[in-house]
């Protein structure tokens, strides 16, 4: 079977939970051939992969958001007369008008228009008379008091990204599988429509809600534009839900959000994340802790140094705990180069507050470091089903996590009787975090008990075998049992 994964802002470029999920998936389904579509922000990063592509990945099709705006693109796609027409009928103009306003879109028409424009003419269309006239009409109806040129550019930047991603080269496959909604989900919907192939979407977080949260909090998005942006992302999610034959989520709570966003409930499957439990032997921990250099309580965190992981709250909590217990050390494991400004901020915070015994290790082999630590911290302000918690729990390490995503279920269980695998704290609450750290640091027996509970929970619900079984079932239903080799020719579809 050939599966085409569609990833946005993640695999194979960015280290993180979703990327690791994709990487593991490809390796665990080694008998399948995988093709990749990667949607990324910057073309200059092309080829700078954070992962080594497994051997069963046969091709990688990429598209970058900044390409329509860069110099080469500008030179290569000289704009013809602004009078060049891309829309065939007044109905198409009306469809685009509704689409730009964020009303429920006729996505089949949108796909057709976007593919007709193609990559070569994308700048011409978004500079052309048709686009400006449509946007002007929208402006005069509802936005006549906002700066006009700003409004044009808002619409242009929103939809050029969307239309650009709809012009990615889509390789032939039996199943299309996106790992988020958003642009990846949209491309999956397009692939499904174009080639009449099944499309499955796995949503780790709820893409539209996450974007909405960012938009609401953002200081640089103008008030009149917030609603447009929210509708824009909701609309894309709706397209993915509509065209997907199956929508997979990691935990039950997300299912309700998806239904709320318009996904038919009967499409939704819950397949939790899984880890290869055999690679996480608790017996390693004892020796690792005995043989490590640090003799106090070693606290670990597997993170990317980015704002969403809220490293600052982690440092604050650690600092407060250290006031009452000096035998604490914090090990921050993970890449630091994703947001260099934030990393610098964290470093300065440590120096300014004179926080001792904090170490940034950079990228490491987590399986070598985890056995050494006594507890794991997670202070993210947004998560789905973090692999870092599952891996720590597999090593029988107690965890302290913020109450985001399904972390509460992971740590305390969802009605099972395995006991607490750690402590859940509110987000951005350094005092609660400090209290939890101190509690666990002072009680090795509690830590051991929590570690056992965690291991049992992972063995029961979050194993690789459960995960593989879940997706094998989904794929076999979608593929119809014959590998689904009834596709149309990709060349014909691209004409």
């Amino acid at each position, binding site marked *: 079977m050939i599966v085409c994964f569609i990833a946005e802002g993640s695999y194979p470029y960015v280290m993180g939970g979703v990327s690791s999920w994709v990487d593991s998936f490809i390796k665990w389904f080694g008998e399948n051939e995988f093709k990749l579509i990667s949607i990324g922000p910057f073309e200059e990063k092309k080829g700078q992969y954070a992962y080594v592509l497994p051997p069963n990945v046969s091709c990688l099709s990429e598209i970058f958001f900044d390409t329509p705006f860069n110099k080469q693109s*500008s030179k290569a796609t000289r*704009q013809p007369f*602004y009078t060049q027409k891309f829309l065939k009928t007044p109905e198409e103009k009306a469809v685009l008008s509704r689409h730009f306003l964020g009303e429920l879109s006729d996505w089949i028409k949108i796909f057709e228009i976007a593919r007709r424009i193609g990559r070569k003419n994308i*700048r011409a269309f978004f*500079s*052309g*008379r048709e686009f*400006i006239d449509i946007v002007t009409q929208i402006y005069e109806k509802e936005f006549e008091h906002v700066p006009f*040129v700003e409004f044009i550019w808002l619409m242009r930047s929103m939809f050029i990204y969307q239309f650009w991603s709809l012009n990615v080269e889509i390789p032939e496959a039996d199943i299309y599988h996106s790992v988020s909604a958003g642009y990846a989900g949209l491309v999956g919907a397009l692939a499904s429509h174009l080639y009449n192939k099944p499309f499955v979407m796995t949503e780790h977080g709820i893409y539209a809600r996450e974007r909405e949260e960012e938009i609401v909090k953002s200081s640089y998005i103008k008030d009149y534009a917030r609603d447009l942006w929210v509708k824009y992302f909701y609309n894309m999610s709706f397209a993915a839900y509509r065209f997907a034959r199956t929508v997979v989520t990691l935990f039950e709570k997300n299912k309700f959000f998806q239904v709320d966003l318009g996904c038919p409930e009967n499409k939704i499957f819950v397949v939790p994340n899984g880890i290869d439990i055999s690679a996480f032997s608790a017996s390693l921990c004892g020796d690792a802790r005995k043989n490590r250099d640090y003799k106090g309580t070693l606290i670990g965190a597997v993170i990317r140094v980015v704002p969403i992981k809220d490293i600052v709250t982690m440092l604050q909590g650690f600092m407060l705990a250290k006031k009452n217990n000096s035998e604490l050390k914090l090990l921050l494991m993970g890449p630091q180069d994703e947001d260099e400004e934030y990393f610098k901020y964290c470093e300065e915070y440590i120096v300014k507050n004179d926080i001792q015994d904090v170490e940034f290790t950079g990228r490491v082999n987590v399986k070598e470091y985890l056995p050494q630590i006594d507890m794991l911290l997670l202070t993210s302000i947004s998560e789905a089903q973090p692999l870092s918690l599952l891996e720590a729990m597999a090593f029988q390490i107690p965890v302290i996590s913020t109450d985001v995503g399904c972390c509460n279920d992971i740590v305390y269980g969802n009605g099972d009787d395995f006991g607490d695998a750690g402590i859940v704290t509110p987000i951005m609450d350094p005092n609660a975090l400090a209290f939890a750290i101190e509690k666990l640091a002072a009680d090795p027996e509690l830590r051991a008990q929590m570690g056992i509970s965690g291991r049992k929970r992972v063995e029961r619900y979050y194993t690789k075998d459960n995960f593989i079984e879940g997706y094998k079932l989904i794929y076999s239903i979608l593929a119809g049992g014959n590998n689904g080799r009834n596709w149309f020719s990709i060349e014909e579809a691209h004409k």
Partner: protein
Amino acid sequence: MAGIGFQLKKLINKNDSYSHKIVSYAYAVLVIYGPMIVCIVCLSILTYAMGIFNVDIKEIAVFSRTIGYIFVLSNVITGASSLVLTRYVSDALYFKDYNKILPSFIGGFIIGVIPGTIIYWIIMLLQKQDLIFIFVSGIFFAVISTIWVLIIYLGALSNHTKILKAFITGGGISIVLMLATSFVPQSFRMNYIFVCLNTGFTVMAALLYAQIKNYFGSGDKSIWDFYNYFKKYPSLIFINLFYILGIYWENFYNFIFIIDLDLKRTYMEPFFLGTFVLIPGMIYFIIKFETAYFEKHATFLETINQKGTYGDITLAKANMVKTLSFEFGKLFRVVLIFGLLISLFCINYLQDRGADEITIWRSVNIALGMGFIVLMYVVKVLFLYYDKKGYAFMISTMFLFFNIGFLNVTRTYGMNHYGIGLLLSGFLTFCIGGIFLISFIKNLHYHLLRMPQE
């Protein structure tokens, strides 16, 4: 050029009396057309003086024709680089990078004056002229070419009185030196007159150069910095070159390819009489048209850049278009009136001088043609305002090819001496360019809202 227009406009509007206005306009003419007027005055005095000094009439004719062709060829050769240089200087002034100014003049001098002078000498050698005459007239060619390059910088200087003094001083020196012609042997008088011109105009060029250096300093940028603009804006070379070649095509063609000694069929005199229509047209454009339009255009752009609503932008554009139509109407009337007046003058003047009917018709057609050339030039400049070099290039190219085409066609019918080619070329190019301009202005917001092209 809008800068000099605003300054002159302020001067003219200082006082409402007619006498003040007449004097101010005369001053404006001198500031903008100084070199040309000084040359014409000097040459007129010279030509008259040569009659007094009993210079052979054939020699006077050769002298007049040579001066004429020096004007034409120097304009054409320096014209190829002048628009690029103008753009470079404008950008330097905008960013207050005054270190670039004087080095760019050196660059412009090297690229325009030196090769042009060599080309002139070669052409004159091929025409088997006297060696000393070739040399001294070549020096005049170099000096006048240098002045064409210097003129690009004069618009940025604020002390126009000093500029005027430089013109008058140079011209005055030439005239004073010429008074000694009677003491020069007959066989050397022609060459001596060129020496007088060379001396006076060299002083003029030196004074202008000193003013520019005083104002902007020596500069420390490489002269090659200016040459990068040729790579960046290659179309500007041809926009100006084709325009100038178009105006002077017949004269240029004659100078290079035909040795014409027919004294009755003098091309230059009626041509230069006709070009007087350019002066009132260009004065009106620089002082009235461009300043009025520039203000509305600036308001329009400001409305866009300062986050105006669609309503604000539409209103600003409507005001701009209204001003454009109004000013074009007035400009048309100016060139029409002066075209007719100068045509009448030419008829009377040339008849008194015993010119034949063809020469008279030639001057009339050229006078009227120059009116359309002013209008066509304004259309071209307006496109360049919006950085639409493609349209400006199209206008210049069309104008040149119309001139070439009409010259060939009229030659077939023996009508090429009447100046009809220039009239028709100017008229047609203005009409076609005007249609494009109307369409462009109507759809201006589409052009301005496009994604920027690198």
